[in-house]
C-alpha cells in the first residue's frame, strides 16, 4: 500500500501543483459502520434432503462438466445415488428456489445421471479413516441398514449385516420393480459397500436363527428391519386364496418365484406399492385396474408413476372402497362402494365417506391389497419399548437400550427410501460417538444442515478446525437477487416408448444425455453459496474486493461498507453486519 507523503517545508514541494503519489495510503475502512462478509448459507435443497446431500455442490460440479467429482461428493453422504436417482420423492425439487422462479432444477434426474456415469467409468469408494477394532451388527439390509454399514465401514469399523431374505437390499430389492429400479443398479451399489469389507449373512432372521445373545460380540447394534407386513383391509373375504398382499406379490416376482396371476386383477390402494403391483402384473400379462378410496389429488403415489400407469392403460377408479370379497356362482367378485370426500383427518387429507346405497360388484380373477405396510417387531427385546410397530428413538436414532440404535421405516419418521438412508447415516455418526465415548450433544450444531435435522457426514469426518464456516440460515427465493437470472425451461428426461414397455421389465425412465445434464445443472442458482460469479468484485466502487489465488477477498482497510456487494450477490452468499466497536 502506498505511503503517506510528508512535505515539511515549501522547498520539499514541487514548483507545480502535481501529484507525487497515490491515495492508497488512505484507509477509508475507518468510514464504515456496517461491514460485508462472505457467508455461505444453506441451499434449500440441501436442507430438505433427508440424506443430507450437498446437492448445490454437486450442481456446481456437474455444471462444470465434473460429473465424476460430483458423484464423489455424493458418496460422502450416501452409497445409493443410483437408487435415489430413480425412486426418491425428491423433496429437494419441491424446495428448489428455482421452482418459484420458473421450474425446479431436475435434481433427481441429475443424481441418476451421476450414478450411471460412475458405473460407466468404474468409479469406486474407499475407506476414509484408520481401521478400528470394534465391530457393529446391522440387522436388515435395506437402505437404512446398508447405509449405516457403508458409513461405519468407511470409518474403519468391522460391520456384519444380517438379512432375513435370501437377497440383500430390503424393499429396494423386493418391493420396487425392475422397470423402476433395475437390479443391476442396486446390486452394483451394494457391491461397492461390500468392497469396503462389510460382511453379510442372508437367510438369517432376527428372532429365529439370530438371537439377541448372538449380538454380544458386537460393540453396537443397528436395527433396520423395515416394513414388510401388509396392512389388512379389515373386510370379509380378504384371506381368500385369490387375494394376496401387493407386497407379497412383488416380493415373489422379484425373487423369481411362481406367483398366481389372475387375468382380471384388481389392486386396492393408491400408494407406490399399488402402482408397482399393477404395472408389474400388466407386464406379466394380466389386465390390472386400481381402486382408490380418495381422489387423484390425495393419491400418495408419485405423480409420474400414476401418469405412466395410465399411459400403459391401467384404469384407476377414484373414490371407491372395498366392502367384501366373495364368490358368487363360481365367479370371484369384489363388492365396492362409492365415496365422497368428507372433512380432513389427522394427516390433513379429506376423509372418504361412503355414499350409502352406491354399492356395486366387480368381477375379478385376483385381488391385491396395498393399503400400507407395518413392521414385524414381535421378536425384538422388550426393553426397546416397541409401540404400534415403531421403536422409540431419540434424535440420534438411539433406542432405550445402550449401544442399540434403530432406523428406517421402523422408527418414527416418514416412510421413504431417502429418510431411511438418512437415518442409517445418522446412526453411523452416533454409533461412532458412542464407541469413541465422545459427547454427542454438541455434534448436531456443527454438522446440521439447516433446521430440518439433516446432517452432513462430510463435515462430521472433517477436523473441527478445518470445517468451513456455515451459516444455519436457509436461503429462500426472496433472499436472492433475481435480476441476474433469466428464465430457462427445465430439461426433461426421456421415457421408453409404449411399444417397448409391453411385456418387458426394461427401465421406463431413460434419463438424459451429458450435454443436457450439464445444461440442466447450470440452471442451479447455487443458493447461498459463492460460485465466483464476481458480482461483488465487479461492482465495488472502492476496488476493495480483490482476487487472491482465484478467490474474492475483502480489503477491510478500504471497504466503506456501502453494501453494494451484498445487494448484488445473486445468491445471498454474503451478509452485512454491524462493524464491531
Amino acid at each position: 500500500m502506498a505511503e503517506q507523503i510528508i512535505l515539511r517545508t515549501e522547498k520539499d514541494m514541487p514548483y507545480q501543483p502535481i501529484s507525487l503519489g497515490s491515495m492508497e495510503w488512505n484507509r477509508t475502512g475507518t468510514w464504515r459502520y456496517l461491514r460485508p462478509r462472505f457467508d455461505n448459507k444453506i441451499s434449500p435443497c440441501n436442507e430438505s434432503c433427508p440424506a443430507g446431500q450437498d446437492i448445490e455442490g454437486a450442481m456446481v460440479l456437474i455444471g462444470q462438466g465434473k460429473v465424476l467429482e460430483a458423484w464423489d461428493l455424493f458418496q460422502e453422504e450416501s452409497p445409493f445415488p443410483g437408487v435415489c436417482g430413480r425412486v426418491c420423492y425428491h423433496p429437494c425439487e419441491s424446495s428448489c428456489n428455482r421452482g418459484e422462479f420458473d421450474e425446479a432444477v431436475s435434481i433427481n434426474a441429475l443424481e441418476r445421471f451421476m450414478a450411471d456415469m460412475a458405473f460407466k467409468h468404474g468409479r469406486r469408494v474407499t475407506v476414509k479413516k484408520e481401521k478400528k477394532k470394534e465391530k457393529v451388527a446391522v440387522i436388515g439390509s435395506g437402505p437404512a441398514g446398508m447405509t449405516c454399514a457403508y458409513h461405519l465401514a468407511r470409518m474403519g469399523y468391522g460391520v456384519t449385516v444380517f438379512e432375513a431374505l435370501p437377497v440383500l437390499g430390503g424393499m429396494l430389492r423386493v418391493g420396487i420393480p425392475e422397470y423402476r429400479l433395475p437390479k443391476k443398479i442396486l446390486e452394483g451399489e451394494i457391491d461397492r459397500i461390500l468392497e469396503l469389507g462389510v460382511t453379510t449373512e442372508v437367510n438369517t432372521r432376527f428372532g429365529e436363527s439370530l438371537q439377541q445373545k448372538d449380538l454380544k460380540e458386537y460393540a453396537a447394534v443397528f436395527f433396520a428391519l423395515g416394513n414388510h407386513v401388509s396392512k389388512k383391509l379389515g373386510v370379509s373375504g380378504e384371506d381368500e386364496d385369490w387375494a394376496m398382499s401387493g407386497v407379497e406379490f412383488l416380493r415373489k416376482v422379484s425373487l423369481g418365484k411362481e406367483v398366481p396371476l389372475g387375468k382380471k386383477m384388481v389392486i386396492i390402494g393408491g400408494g407406490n406399492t399399488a402402482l408397482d403391483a399393477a404395472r408389474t402384473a400388466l407386464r406379466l400379462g394380466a389386465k390390472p385396474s386400481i381402486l382408490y378410496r380418495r381422489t387423484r389429488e390425495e393419491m400418495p403415489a408419485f405423480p409420474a408413476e400414476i401418469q405412466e400407469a395410465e399411459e400403459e392403460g391401467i384404469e384407476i377408479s377414484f373414490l371407491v372402497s372395498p366392502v367384501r370379497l366373495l364368490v358368487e356362482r363360481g365367479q370371484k367378485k369384489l363388492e365396492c362402494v362409492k365415496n365422497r370426500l368428507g372433512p380432513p383427518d389427522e394427516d390433513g387429507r379429506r376423509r372418504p365417506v361412503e355414499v350409502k346405497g352406491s354399492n356395486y360388484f366387480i368381477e375379478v380373477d385376483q385381488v391385491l391389497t396395498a393399503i400400507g405396510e407395518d413392521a414385524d417387531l414381535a421378536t425384538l427385546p422388550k426393553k426397546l419399548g416397541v409401540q404400534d410397530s415403531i421403536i422409540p428413538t431419540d434424535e440420534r436414532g438411539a433406542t432405550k437400550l445402550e449401544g442399540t440404535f434403530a432406523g428406517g421405516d421402523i422408527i418414527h419418521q416418514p416412510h421413504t427410501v431417502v429418510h431411511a438412508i438418512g437415518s442409517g447415516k445418522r446412526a453411523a455418526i452416533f454409533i461412532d460417538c458412542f464407541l469413541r465415548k465422545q459427547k454427542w450433544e454438541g455434534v448436531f450444531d456443527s454438522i446440521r444442515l439447516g433446521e430440518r435435522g439433516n446432517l452432513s457426514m462430510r463435515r462430521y469426518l472433517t477436523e473441527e478446525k478445518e470445517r468451513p464456516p456455515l451459516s444455519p440460515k436457509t436461503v429462500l427465493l426472496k433472499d436472492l437477487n433475481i435480476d441476474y437470472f433469466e428464465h430457462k425451461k427445465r430439461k426433461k428426461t426421456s421415457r421408453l416408448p409404449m411399444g417397448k414397455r409391453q411385456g418387458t421389465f426394461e427401465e421406463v425412465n431413460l434419463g438424459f444425455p451429458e450435454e443436457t445434464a450439464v445444461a440442466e445443472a447450470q440452471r442451479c442458482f447455487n443458493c447461498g453459496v459463492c460460485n465466483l460469479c464476481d458480482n461483488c468484485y465487479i461492482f465495488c466502487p472502492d476496488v476493495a474486493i480483490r482476487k487472491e489465488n482465484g478467490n474474492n477477498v475483502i480489503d477491510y482497510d478500504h471497504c466503506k461498507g456501502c453494501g453494494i456487494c451484498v445487494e448484488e450477490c445473486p445468491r445471498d452468499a454474503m451478509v452485512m453486519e454491524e462493524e464491531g466497536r
Partner: protein
Amino acid sequence: MKKIMVGNHAVSWGVMLSRAEVVSAYPITPQTSIVEELSVLCADGKLKANFIPVESEHSAMACVIGAAAAGVRTFTATSSQGLALMHEMLHWASGSRLPIVMANVNRALGAPFNIWGEQSDSLSQRDTGWIQIYCESNQEVLDTVIQAFKIAEKVLLPVMVVLDAFVLSHTAEPVDIPDAHIVDQFLPAFKPEFKLDPQNPRSFACFLTPDFFMEFRYKMQRAMLESEAVCKEVDGQFGEIFGRGYGLVEAYRCEGADVVLMTAGAVTSTARVAVDALREKGRKVGLLKLRLFRPFPKEDILEVIRKVEKVAVLDRNLSLGLGGMFAHELRAALCNEKVRPRIYNYITGLGGRDTTLQILNDVVYQTYEQPEPPEQSIWVGMRG
C-alpha cells in the same frame, strides 16, 4: 529581411518564428488579423501548428492550457471583452505554471460598447500572475513575442505581450524579420520537466487544501519577482544577437529633467516627439518608457527618476474610483523610498481618443504649474 507590416501581423510572424505548436483563438476586433495571418502562415506551410478555432475566448485559453500541459509551445491572442471573458482561465494558466504566450491588443472594455484603444483591459488583469510587456512599435512587438516565449519557458509563468489597438495593430510599419535559424538558436525547443504523459501518470493543477495553497502561491510570487532579472537577461541576449534591445524601461533625455513623462505603449512614440519639441523650447523634460509592467521594475525606474522632482504619469486606462493604474503602481512602488519624485497622474485617451502632441504639452505644462500633485487624477483632452 525588412517587410512593411501591421502590428498584428508582426505578432503572427513572431509566433511563426517562435515555432508555436498549438494556437487557439477566437476573433475579436482588433485582434482578428493576428489569427488570420497565422491561418495563412499555417496554410502556406510556414508554421506547423495545430490551430483550434474555438467558440469563445474562455475555451481558447482552456485549449492552450490543455496543450501546454501536454508539453508543447502554445499561443493565443485576444482583446478587451475576450480577455475579460478568459479572466478565470488566466488565473488557471499561471497557477498551473504553464509558459503560455498571449498577445493582447489593448481595447476599451464595454459598457458602453467601444472598440478603440485603451489599456484598461490588460491592466485590470494585473493580479492574474501573468508577466506583462507593453510594446511601442511593430518591430518591438515581433521581437517581444520571441522574447516572451523564452522568458515564459524559463520562469514557467505565462507572458502577455501588449500592443495598442489600431495604432499598432492596424498600422503598417517597416519590420525587420529575424532569420529563422538564428531565432532557433536563441529560442530552442520547449522541453518541460513535467507534462501529461501516460508513461509518467500524474494529476496536474491538483485540488488542494489550505495545508498547501500558500506555498504554491509563494513559489509563484518568487518566480514572478525573479522573472524581472530574466526579462532583462533575455532582452540583453536578444539585443546582442539581433542588435535590438529594449530594456525593462527606457530613459529618453532624462538628464537633468525637472519633469519626466512616464508612458507605456504606442503613445511613447508621440511622447518622444513632444519631449524633443519641449527641450527645443528650453524645458527640461524627459521621458520614461515603461516596457515591463508586471513585475513592476522598481529599481530600473528609480535609477531614472529617483532625483527627479516631478513625474507625470500618462494613463490611457482607468480603475474606477482609483484613477490611473500606472500611476497607482508607481506610487505604491515608491511609497517607502526616502527620496522620491512627486507623482502626477493624467487620464487621457480613453476609448481610443487620440493622445495628441497638444495634449502631451498640456500635461507637461500642468505638471510645471502645480506645485503639488492633486489627490485625484487629472483628466485631459475632454470635450469643451
